[in-house]
């Protein structure tokens, strides 16, 4: 353990890492208005942040725009055990998706590897007082002490946020669920695991429709798995799923009940010059997102992000290099398993900027209009609240500037896998292990949250 009788300090670092393992954030998602931000972690907890509404007096001033504060915390999933297969089921929250708001309450779907749950988040700021049969603490009163009758009234009370599970969609998946996506019809959603995609109705928990099944009759023939899936933002009959071979398949549910046959397949032919044993692994798509317009797809593979036009299947319309300098290090990254890291990617509200994560607490933003990319860092030590995020550079040759980071000094344990962009404003939420960073583009204002 590192205890040395001669040294005064005891090495507790391993203990610290162990303790916070459950706090590692595994998903981040804004709701449709951006007022709420939900994070899920490896310990099965969900934390919801709410944006403070600006007071009317300050609406003219710049700077103190709404901060995000903790609104509610709840335990979504517990560790489970599959007795039939003698396997533990991790409680890690893989994805959270908000439902469109229909009344005062908010609904979100959260999923671990096996089970999807629908949670209702509601506020309570009044409570009834003046019961006849119960006293203030809720204890049943002795009847003989009741001498008169009164009508209970609602009295204002401190705001309470209640979170209750409303639906539990269990036993739908044999393999690990990697994606959920709410349909634009507001009634159904899909859940995808490694080999199958199911469609559920939000009100029905005891059955689901299987819409994609790529499991081969012989598991020995398995060479491709599903890595992500999403419904089209406007067309309720269209969805896309990505595979470990780097293909995207657009499926139309009107064509058939089982959408094993795709309507369109998006695939980029392999570049023979860059071929290596790792070509397939780095072509595996880790995330796919429709643009807000519904016209484009954004995909992330190990070294690049690509924008695809739904009308053009033969290749992406834009390709951005996230960390091309890692191409010569693929062997080491294969050895330490970093090559299997699944990075997410996001669009901004106007589909003009795309963002994705990288290593060393860096994340990248690309402006689609200019084609230029920028590297930013989300690391507590190097940024103070309200400080401007400065751009970083990786040194890959040529003249080295001060502040450049060498490729060999990159910390591959600090990976930015999960992130979200506010649906309307330039506010981004970045998850860096167990820290959540929220950056706002409001006249150099920056928010730091953990």
């Amino acid at each position, binding site marked *: 353990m590192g205890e040395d009788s001669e040294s005064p300090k005891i090495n507790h670092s391993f203990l610290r890492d162990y303790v916070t393992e459950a706090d590692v954030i595994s998903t981040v998602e804004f709701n449709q208005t951006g007022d709420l931000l939900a994070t899920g972690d490896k310990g099965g907890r969900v934390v919801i942040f709410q944006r403070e509404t600006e007071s009317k007096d300050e609406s003219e001033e710049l700077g103190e725009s709404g901060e995000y504060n903790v609104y509610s915390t709840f335990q979504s999933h517990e560790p489970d055990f599959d007795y039939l297969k003698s*396997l*533990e089921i991790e409680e890690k929250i893989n994805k959270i998706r908000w439902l469109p708001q229909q009344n005062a309450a908010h609904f979100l779907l959260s999923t671990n590897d096996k089970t999807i749950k629908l949670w209702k988040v509601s506020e309570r700021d009044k409570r009834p007082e003046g019961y006849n049969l119960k006293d203030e603490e809720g204890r049943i009163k002795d009847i003989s002490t009741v001498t008169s009758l009164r009508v209970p009234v609602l009295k204002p009370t401190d705001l309470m946020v209640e979170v209750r599970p409303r639906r539990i969609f269990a036993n739908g998946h044999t393999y690990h669920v990697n994606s959920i996506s709410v349909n634009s019809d507001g009634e159904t959603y899909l859940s995808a695991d490694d080999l199958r995609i199911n469609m559920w109705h939000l009100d029905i928990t005891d059955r689901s429709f299987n819409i994609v099944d790529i499991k081969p009759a012989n598991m020995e023939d398995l060479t491709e798995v599903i890595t992500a899936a999403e419904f089209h933002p406007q067309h309720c009959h269209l969805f896309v799923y990505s595979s470990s071979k780097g293909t995207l398949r657009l499926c139309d549910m009107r064509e058939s009940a089982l959408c094993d046959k795709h309507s369109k397949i998006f695939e980029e032919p392999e570049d023979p010059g*860059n071929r290596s044993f790792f070509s397939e692994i780095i072509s595996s798509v880790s995330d796919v997102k429709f643009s807000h317009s519904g016209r484009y797809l954004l995909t992330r593979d190990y070294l690049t992000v690509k924008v695809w036009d739904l009308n053009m299947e033969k290749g992406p319309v834009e390709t951005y290099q996230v960390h091309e300098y890692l191409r010569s290090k693929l062997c*080491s990254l294969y050895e330490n398993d970093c090559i299997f890291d699944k990075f997410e990617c996001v669009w901004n509200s106007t589909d003009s900027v795309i963002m994705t994560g990288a290593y060393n607490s860096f994340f990248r933003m690309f402006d689609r209009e200019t084609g230029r990319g920028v590297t930013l860092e989300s690391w507590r030590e190097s940024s103070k609240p309200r400080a401007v995020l400065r751009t970083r550079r990786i040194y890959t040759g040529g003249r080295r500037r001060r502040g450049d980071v060498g490729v060999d000094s990159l910390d591959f344990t600090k990976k930015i896998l999960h992130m979200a962009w506010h649906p309307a404003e330039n506010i981004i939420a970045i998850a860096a292990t167990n820290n959540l960073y929220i950056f706002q583009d409001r006249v150099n204002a920056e928010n730091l949250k953990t």
Partner: protein
Amino acid sequence: MFSKGTKRKFSDGDEEISDESLVGARVASSYNLQRQSLLDMSLIKLQLCHMLVEPNLCRSVLIANTVRQIQEEMTHDGSWHMVTEAFCGPGQSPSERLVATEVLCRSREQDAEPKLFSVISYEGCREEEVVADETLCSVSVSDTVSNVCLAGRVGQCWEKSELSGVERDEEALEDSRLGSGEDEEIDTEDGASTESPKTTGQVFGTFEIKNGSPGPDSALEELFSDVDTSYYDLDTMLTGMQSAPKMGPYDLLDSLAPSHGSPSIVSTPTCRSDLNELDHIMEIIVGS
């Protein structure tokens, strides 16, 4: 990116081999060594992730595809080519070698037990040496023959898997995989001298399959049949987990440790009967 550079070197090495230059052989075997190391690493990863409580299917599939890709390439140009030159004796004719191979292959057919795990164990030792050098490219080429033996062994075990049929008892596969790690220490005691003709046979065994089957792809599919099934079939995995529930990934590496100091040419894993295999399984379950 090592494969791009070394591919060019390999073609140079080809010409030099025909001139019977040792330098060319070394260069080519350097690429082979790197490729072999990658194969070793991949097999170790597959084995380890198979033993984890929750194997990540995507990762397993990607690694298995990489292994398949390497094996295809080795079958097509790498390993058997090297072996031809390495074992080319002045008096031996090619047909003689092949005949001897058939005999050797047949004798192995009788053994129902797959050798995949033993192969992995052995290669795991080698892989540890490789890892210590931090990059594959910096591993020194020790012995051409030893590299070839490695390639041969891998081919041999796939060959065995195919010859023994796809419909094997998957429990046996699981248990042997988990159990025969302990075989390694016993196997190293075998004399190295007796192993050379066997290794030749192993490699040519691979070559044999390639020619005999309708197409290399189907042969490879079958070769992989037993490798993959157990990884993806959860029922099979359950069986495997039940036989050795206590053995974790680090136990595997520990069991490899004694063989780490073995000479580079390690003996062929001896074929064990089902009875011995059952004994080993019982040992693991009992925890002795």
